[in-house]
């Protein structure tokens, strides 16, 4: 069952579309679930399918197509490091390696305390701030240096 909160938000989305095109709200519904619990499992997808009256497989197609949906638990703070071209040119690989070493995890992994998850991501459209990462797909942190990373992680650690 989708939580009341997710259903409420999805209903608001549904108002944007014709009543026989309920599946248009699938991306929003998946996003709401991820906002709520950090990731989306297959039961959630089946619930979304039932709620939006669409095939389960179609929900799965959407959820697996888009990079920003987490298909497994990714920790309380998911850091998504952009590794596309602009970031690469200014040292995204070093940034990624630094975070890997600091957290002691690889890409796609979560720290043992469940606080941090690390992902590789695609271009965020703010290449002037490269290298950069996003926190929980919501907040972009650019112009990353080792010091800045240490500072951000320390702040997140306190939360």
């Amino acid at each position, binding site marked *: 069952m989708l939580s009341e909160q997710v259903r409420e938000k999805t209903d608001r989305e549904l108002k944007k579309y014709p009543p026989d095109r309920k599946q248009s709200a699938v991306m929003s519904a998946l996003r709401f679930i991820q906002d709520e619990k950090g990731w989306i499992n297959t039961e959630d997808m089946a619930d979304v399918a039932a709620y939006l009256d669409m095939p389960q*497989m179609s929900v799965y197609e959407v959820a697996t*197509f888009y990079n920003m949906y987490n298909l497994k638990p990714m920790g309380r703070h998911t850091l998504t490091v952009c590794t596309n071209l602009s970031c690469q040119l200014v040292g995204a690989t070093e940034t990624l390696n630094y975070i890997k070493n600091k957290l002691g995890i690889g890409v796609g992994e979560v720290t043992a305390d469940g606080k941090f998850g690390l992902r590789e991501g695609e271009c965020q459209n703010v290449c002037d701030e490269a290298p950069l990462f996003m926190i929980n797909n919501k907040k972009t942190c650019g112009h990353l240096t080792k010091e800045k990373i240490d500072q951000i992680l320390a702040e997140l650690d306190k939360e």
Partner: protein
Amino acid sequence: MINIEIDGKHIEVENGCSVIDAADRLGIYIPHFCYHKKLSIAANCRMCLVQIEKAPKPLPACATPVAEGMKVFTASEQAVKAQKGVMEFLLINHPLDCPICDQGGECELQDLAVGYGGSASRYSEEKRVVLHKDIGPLVAAEEMSRCINCTRCVRFGTEIGGATELGQAFRGEHAEIMAFMSDTVDSELSGNMIDLCPVGALTSKPFRYSARTWELSRRKSISPHDSLGSNLAVQVKNNHVMRVLPIENEDINECWLSDKDRFSYEGLNSTERLTKPMIKQGGKWLEVEWQVALEYVTNGLRQIVHKAGAEHIGALATPHSTLEELYLLQKLVRGLGSHNVDFRLRQSDFSADSKQTGAPWLGMAVADINHVDRFLLVGSFLRKDHPLLASRVRQATKKGAQVNLIHATDDDLLMPLANKEIVPPTEMTTVLAQVLKALAITKQATLDTSVQEAVQSVTLSASAQAMADSLASGERVAILLGNFAQQHPQASQLQLLAQHIAALCGATFGFLGEAANSVGGYLAQAVPFVGTAHGMNASTMLAAPRKAYILLNVEAELDTHNPQQALAAMNAADMVVALSAYKHHATEYADVLLPIAPFTETSGTFVSSEGRAQSFKGTVQPSGEARPAWKVLRVLGNMLNISGFDYNNSETVRDEALGSADVSAKLGNILHGMTAQATTWNVAELQRVSDVPIYAADAIVRRAASLQKTRDAATPRALMHSVELTKLNLKPGEMVKLTQGHGSARLTIIADDSLPHGIVRVAAGHAITAELGAMFGDIMVDRA
């Protein structure tokens, strides 16, 4: 119309036509993988790139609509360079395992790689690996690395099958075809995905690694299962049916086959095949020579005619028997002086006999279904009983057709329903009477006296009114009575009401015949009423046991409306002669078993629901000493000295059976001299509703091993509304004892709140329910 030029050839096509379609009409082949004429356009394989004048780069022919004056070059330097480029990309990740690939020799990728591929790959890096999937017992997805992601299978499921069971998950290099949560593909049309797959990713599980395509000879045949009459290509190696594929026939099965038609061939090679004539002596079965067995039969029949009278002989056949077999069976029985012959074994209401203008049929051509804009389906498990016909109705709904359903169960038809009335069988006539009443009011028509009384007594419900409005607003309306309506105890009442509804809204009305020869049986006169003579029908023949029965393809406990009664009659008979392709339960009650040939081993004719007589030849030699049933019956006729049994071939039997007149002249659904009754029959607290599961409907599919592993062939369970369960203090999942008459069956009970109250849904045609009584009627449920 639009004028275009392809490779210098001029053609005029309609607006909206794609370049690939236009080229096809000119006989110009454009290489392609994802394009399929029956599916939506995906344009994702890019193989059909062609050069178009004034376009800056090659365009996909499948997704490019024609435009006035367009000049297309399919084999220019630019086009061929593009096609070769695409092929190189497609082959980058495709494994070079053709020698061990089941698709080898009939692979579209292999064929086109010969024409457009390089002789060696420039790509030396690692190829991608896609893990194998288990998607059920029919379609093998064991080598998904071969997949080129054309998505034909996905589009087939969504667009033709009506359910998106497969999809393309992930993206880019990681994209793969899979089912949600490793589910199985349960569509009754799933086998078509194997045909559609242009590579060896989806292959036939039963056929895999058993033969190469070039070793097989291909012979035409006709499906012996449902009443559509699908055209089959039976592929044979060493006198053995190896697989069955569709033969394209746009008017019948298009380019598809239902899984039942495609995979039932496994039943032909079953170990249960009866290969020698057998006689029971002193309670033991002995294998004997044909001559001995036939003499035993003729002597037995003669004695019974002599001692008890010819009316003590009864003949029952399944509607899956050929026209020739049915014709000779009735001729034999009538030659002995009896009129007790019938093929309508699951029917229970015979009051329409000899009141009908002809053989009940579809009332229209199958191909016309796609153009109907309003349907009224009465009593039909449409998807399971008529898979491809259901697909045609589904296509019609996509063009805006409205489907109205009156039925006792609410199975998902995988298509939108405009209105539905799910009612107990006892109320089906009432609902039809309501629709008729509403239509009469709308159209301000005076009803015929034969239905007036029944209509007056009903009060209109909102949904009946909605159905009437839906039907009245249509231009091409069809009212179709399904298997359930034909097996219904008030079948003729339903027919009469449907007939009058059809008359009011200018609809065609007809029957979705239960089996391959449901129309043919009437034409062969394998019915008890011919001219003025009246014998006993399938029901009375079993209710008042005869001394001798001749069974043609019949498994008495599975093929009849009331298996309990049928078995009792068989057990009480002095002599039961079973003509069967299989050794089955008849060994308990029969005295003689005569091995006959199934449809692949005999010539014959099936007359489909639309009244199309299709003859076929045998594709392999009969197994063991089995013989075509028409030959067995011919010899029996000769030995019994019945005149007119000197046939040289099955064609002469067919010509005699069909007569000189056109088949269409013998068809007719209109009832005369019947009155619709306002009353229904009295029922106890619970009544039974039966479906015949798709893979339990006839002797061949019952023995098709792979089909029997599908979800549709799972052990039947009893279904009831949860309110009824609570009343009986039962919990879903419990074992219950179902009792009808003196027999009972033990099944798991399941809650199904889409069923009307007072109903227990129990499958018929299955060994587990063979002890029960009639398909409709009172039933008791207790905790087991």
